[in-house]
C-alpha cells in the first residue's frame, strides 16, 4: 500500500529515519517540525533520495497558537494514513527547578501533541484504517529522580494514547504507543552506552513494524519491556531508597 505519512518532529534523528523509510516505499510524506529551514533540508533530502512528494509544515509544539495554524496545512492533501509523533526532548537535568523548562519539556513531549491532535482528530477520526503512533519513552513508565519532568510528560502522553486508543477503536483506527529505550540519536548521545543504543534506522524499522501490525504498546528495543516490568514491580517504599538515577 502507498499512502501518506505524517511525521511530526520529522527533523529528529528517528523522525527523519521514519520519513525516509516510508518515502523509500513511495509514500507521500508530510514533514512537520519546529525550524522551517531544517524541515526544508530534510524534505529536500527525501525528495532527492526517493523522488517522492514531501510537504513541509512549520509546527512549534511550544507555541500555543501553532497547532491551529499547522493543522490545515497538514490536512491539505487529505488526512494522512499514518500519523507519527516523533518529537521529544529530555530537557536539561535539574529542569524541575526551572518553570520555563518544565513548561517547554511538557509542551514538546505532550502538550503540543495533544493540542495538534485536537485540530486533526475531527478529520482524522473518520479515516477508517488510519494509524496513529506516539513515540513515548521508558522514562514514562516510572518516575525516576534523574528525569522526572521528562518522564511525567511521557507518562501523560502514555495515558492520552490509552484513552485515544479506546476512543478510536470502534472507528477502525489504531493507536500505537512506542516506548523507546536508548536510540542512537541526539537525546541519548554521550549518555547511553554506545553498544546498547539502537541505530535510528533499525529503531525506525521496529516502529514501522509495530504500526503495520497495529500493535497497542511496544518497547523498542524489546528487552526494555522486561527491564521496565521489573522496575515497575518494585514497591514505592523500596524504590525511593534505591540508587536508580
Amino acid at each position, binding site marked *: 500500500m502507498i499512502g501518506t505519512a505524517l511525521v511530526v518532529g520529522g527533523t529528529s534523528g528517528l523522525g527523519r529515519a521514519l520519513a525516509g523509510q516510508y518515502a523509500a516505499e513511495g509514500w507521500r510524506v508530510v514533514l512537520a517540525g519546529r525550524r522551517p529551514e531544517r524541515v526544508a533540508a530534510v524534505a529536500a*533530502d527525501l525528495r532527492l533520495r526517493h523522488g517522492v512528494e514531501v510537504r513541509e509544515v512549520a509546527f512549534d509544539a511550544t507555541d500555543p497558537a501553532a497547532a491551529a495554524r499547522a493543522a490545515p496545512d497538514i490536512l491539505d492533501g487529505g488526512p494522512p494514513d499514518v500519523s507519527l509523533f516523533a518529537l521529544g526532548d529530555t530537557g536539561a537535568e535539574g529542569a524541575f527547578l526551572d518553570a520555563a523548562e518544565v513548561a517547554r519539556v511538557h509542551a514538546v513531549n505532550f502538550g503540543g501533541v495533544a493540542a495538534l491532535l485536537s485540530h486533526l482528530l475531527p478529520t482524522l477520526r473518520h479515516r477508517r484504517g488510519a494509524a496513529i503512533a506516539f513515540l513515548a519513552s521508558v522514562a514514562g513508565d516510572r518516575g525516576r529522580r534523574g528525569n522526572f519532568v521528562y518522564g511525567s510528560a511521557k507518562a501523560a502522553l502514555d495515558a492520552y494514547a490509552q484513552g485515544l486508543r479506546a476512543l478510536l477503536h470502534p472507528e477502525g483506527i489504531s493507536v500505537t504507543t512506542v516506548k523507546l529505550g536508548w536510540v542512537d540519536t541526539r*537525546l541519548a548521545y*554521550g549518555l547511553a552506552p554506545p553498544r546498547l543504543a539502537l541505530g535510528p534506522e533499525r529503531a525506525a524499522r521496529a516502529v514501522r513494524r509495530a504500526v503495520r501490525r497495529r500493535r497497542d504498546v511496544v518497547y523498542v528495543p524489546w528487552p526494555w519491556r522486561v527491564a521496565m516490568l521489573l522496575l515497575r514491580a518494585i514497591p514505592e517504599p523500596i524504590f525511593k531508597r534505591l540508587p536508580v538515577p
Partner: protein
Amino acid sequence: MLYIAPVPFRAQERRLSGFARRPVVRSRVYRPEWPDEVPAMLAEIPESLLPRGAGMAYGDAALNDGRGTLETRRLDRFLALDEAAATVTCEAGVPLRDLIRVGLRRGLFPAVVPGTWRSTVGGCLACDVHGKNHQVAGSFLDHVARFRLALADGRVVECSRQENPDLFFATAGGLGLTGVILDVTLRLRRVGSAWVRVRRLRNRDLDATFAALERPEPEQYSVAWLDVLARGGRLGRSVLLLGDHAAPEELPARRRPRALEWSPGGSLRLPFDAPGGAMSAGMVRLFNAAFWARALGDGAPRLWRLRRFFFPLEAVDDFARLYGRRGFVQYQFVAPPRAAQAVVRAAVERLSAAGLGSFLCVVKRMGPASDAPLSFPAQGYTVAVDLPFRGEPLLSLLRGLDELVAREGGRVYLAKDSRLDPAFLDAMYPRRREWATLLDRLDPGRRLDSTLARRLGLREAA
C-alpha cells in the same frame, strides 16, 4: 546534580582506528547533527578536534588520540541536484554509496571514486582521493566546484577556485586540518548504465606489465593487479584491468530497460577476526593463482556490475578483519615518470623477496598533479600494496622503500600511512611548509590537530 550538556558538546569516549585497524586510540567523539552546530563546537569545545567521516583512512590520518574527534556522519543530507548541469550539493558526511544510489538512476556517477564506497564526500576531499581513471580524470578535487568550510575559530567560509583559493587547495589533501568541511558541490559524470565493460589482459612479467600500462587504450579506467608472490621469470606478472561505463545498447536486451538500476549486491559478514593465517603467503598464493587463471581468454570484453569493478572489497563486510587482530599496513607511493619504472621494479623485487604475502597489490599510471600542496596524486606510477602487520621486519622493509621513493622525488600517500619517518616528509611534499604557514595563520592555537600531524610534525612551519 549532574549537568547534561547540550548535545553538540556531549562526547562519547570511544576506541577508534583507521581501516587497517592499527593504531587503535582513545578519543572523545563529538557528533553534530546539523552543519550549523559545527561553528559553535569549534569555538567552544576545550580540546583540539579532528573532523572524521567514515574513518576509512588506513592509518592515523583520521585519529586524534587522547583529544577530540568531530564525527560528520550525521551530516548526510543531499541539498540540491541539478540534472541538467550534472552537479550535486550535499553535506560532507554523505557516503559515496548514497551518492551513487541517488545519482545512478539519473544517469550520473561520481567522476572519481576510490576503492571503497563507504568514504564520505568530505573525507574524499580531505584526502584528495583518486581512482582508476586518474590519468584522464584527475583527482577528486578536479570535480569539486565549491565547498563550505568551518575554520578553527568557528568562522564559516565559502571556498572555490575563485573565492578563498588558498583554502580551497589547502583543504584538498589537507587531512581535515584546515577546518570542517560542511557541504560540497560536485560535478558528476554522465553514464549510460550501472554496468562496466571490462577487459582483462594478462602480462607475464614486469616488463609486460609496464608495456601494457604505457599502451594507449580507449578505456578511461585502468589498473594492474600484480602478483607480488611471483618470482624469477614471472616477477611482476599482472592482470591489467581496463574498464569503461557501458552504454545501454551494450547490455543484453533483457537488462536494457533497467540499465541504470542500482544493485549493490549482498556482502559477506565476518562475525569475528580471521585467525592469523587467513592472509598467509599460501592463501594469498592460491588467491593470486585463481585471479590469474580467471583472466584467461584475454581481451574479450565482459560486463561487470559497478561494485565488482570499483569496490571489490565491499564484497566482504569488514575486509580488514581478514588480516586478524594485528591489522595490516597499506603502503602506497607514487614515483615520477623518469624514475617510475626503476622504483616500481625495485619495490616489487623487495616485496617479492620478503615474501610477506600481499593480498592486494595494484599498479597504476597517474596523470598530472593538482595544485593542492598536500595532494598525493602526481604524474608517474603508483603502487599500492596491503601487507599483514609483522612488526619490525615489515617496518624496516618499508623504511627502505621510503628512502628510495623520497630520493627519486616520489611520495607516499599520507591517508594510508601510520609509520612514515618524518625525516622524509619534506622531500616527499616540498610544498608542505607553505601549507603549514597558512594553517599557522588560520589556527595558531592548533585547535585542529591529529595523531598523524603530531607524529609527522605536519604542521611545523619553521
